[in-house]
């Protein structure tokens, strides 16, 4: 293994993760079903409260990101919790912490992005499609998924090392997520509004970007200490 370059190692790990995911198709299916049924819960609650048509842009974005939040927690923590202790031990001897972290982050970012796209699609079909600025909506999806994925990757690593479960991931991650959630939902509701909000949206997008960058830096610095256990 040492002959391989950093990137090759990362992609080998990602490939392994994808293969495992595809082998257990019911897990993938259950995560998708999880988002779909959450959207359906929201849809029916709105419908029979006669508020499907009066739902405002901020409420739409908050509901949407809550759905993504819960499926992301499940998906990301699964990618850690399904690995047995011997597997983790093997990785520990085979790969540097940075390789392992990068592979997990890249895999989870893509996974979370896919989840949020699917969630958005179901939202568009079932509830409504109020998006007016697709470009901003897409950028906030990417940056938002990035924040979710990095945060929950680190928190899952912590929870796995603590020999705990998914609940701990949520407990540890949610309070830290609050600042990001504020900016993400702000930009999303701007993307549902009109062009006047363009400037505000860009400003908040930059803030999300800055927070993401900070999280990545912290993750890179701190992950080796968790990994050492």
């Amino acid at each position, binding site marked *: 293994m040492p002959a391989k370059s950093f990137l090759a190692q990362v992609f080998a790990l990602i490939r392994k993760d994808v293969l495992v995911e595809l082998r257990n198709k019911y897990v993938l299916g259950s995560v998708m079903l999880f988002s779909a049924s959450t959207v359906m819960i929201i849809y029916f609650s709105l419908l029979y409260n006669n508020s499907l048509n009066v739902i405002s842009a901020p409420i739409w974005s908050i509901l949407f990101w809550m759905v993504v939040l819960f499926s992301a927690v499940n998906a990301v923590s699964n990618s850690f919790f399904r690995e047995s202790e011997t597997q983790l031990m093997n990785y520990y001897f085979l790969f540097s912490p940075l390789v392992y972290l990068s592979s997990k982050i890249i895999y989870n970012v893509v996974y979370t992005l896919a989840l949020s796209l699917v969630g958005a699609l179901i939202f568009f079909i079932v509830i409504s499609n109020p998006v007016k600025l697709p470009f901003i909506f897409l950028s906030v999806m990417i940056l938002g998924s990035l924040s979710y994925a990095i945060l929950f990757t680190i928190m899952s690593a*912590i929870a796995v*090392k*603590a*020999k705990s479960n998914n609940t701990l991931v949520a*407990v540890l991650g949610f309070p*830290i997520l609050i600042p990001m959630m504020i900016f993400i939902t702000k930009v999303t509701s701007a993307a549902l509004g009109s062009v006047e909000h363009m400037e505000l949206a860009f400003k908040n997008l930059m803030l999300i970007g800055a927070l993401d960058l900070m*999280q990545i830096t*912290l*993750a890179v610095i*701190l992950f080796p200490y968790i990994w050492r256990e």
Partner: protein
Amino acid sequence: MKTEIPNWLQQKWWKYTALLLLFYVLLGGLIVPLGPGIEAVSPISFKQNTDATIIVHGYNTHFSTAGNTQVILKHAKKYFCVNDLMVKDENNLSFPFKFNPDSSDAGNTFDVIVNNNIDGTIALREAITFVRGEKEDSITATQACEPSVGSNLHTGFSFPYREILYESIRNTFYHVPMWFSMMLVLIISLVYSIKFLRTGNRVFDIVASESVIVALLCGVLGLTTGMIWANYTWGSPWPNDPKLNGAAVGVLIYVAYLILRGAIADGVKRARISAVYNIFAIVIYIMFIFIIPRITDSLHPGNGGNPAFSKYDLDSHLRLFFYPAVIGWVLLFCWMVSLRVRLKIIELKKEENE
């Protein structure tokens, strides 16, 4: 492993300083009276061309003992001087007023200003509204005047009288230092978490975790004092205020930290993992509390057009108690941290000897 205790933790002088300062703040902060102010003016509005007797209710004022009492109504740059003052007692005075201005004044809200040689100049902003009457008579208009307010200043030693806050201004000595202490103790915890990760010395982990516990105490105390205060001043225990929300998020994060610590049995592993979480959380948290107040309005002084004091006009009498209060509380909480740390170090030593 190095487990000796830093010398300053055992020294007593700063602990007694804390107690002395807090005692001074507690006693002084409660005994010093509130300065004079106008509590209310009734009626709050009246019609043009009606005779009204306007009553001014003062708080801690000295209407009957003071001399040279003047009352002036003011709107923008226009003044009406009041004659025929009738002083009822120290805190109440009244005057008859017939309002017949030129039509431009109708509908305006006037400030009431009282000046005398004991209370100085006190005012109630936007106290009376003059409503337009049915018909404008040919009675001569009330003359505006050029007031020559005596340069009287309030002389007694007192805390400033502020609308909305009133006597509750004393809470400044308790509520605000909680926030300072929480921030300081959290920074101590951050520093020691980093130190722990660099050296692996478990004493540093003890300092970090015990600081978090004390920070939680500060956070909870700050939240409760803030909630009680807000309930009496802004009318709701949870006014969407960034600082209050910041404290609440801090409490959530650090309860999660303690849960994480509780979930791990092994000592060294617990120390390392919780240090990682602590550093990760605190960096994001500090960004949160420094960014959020800049993008939203705050009810706190100095933010978003708040009528309360700002840190720049913190009254000099308040300062005499506020700064000692901050120092005293910070030292007290540091003392608490030091006690807990020393206790844990003893436990650790015992563990190692066994």
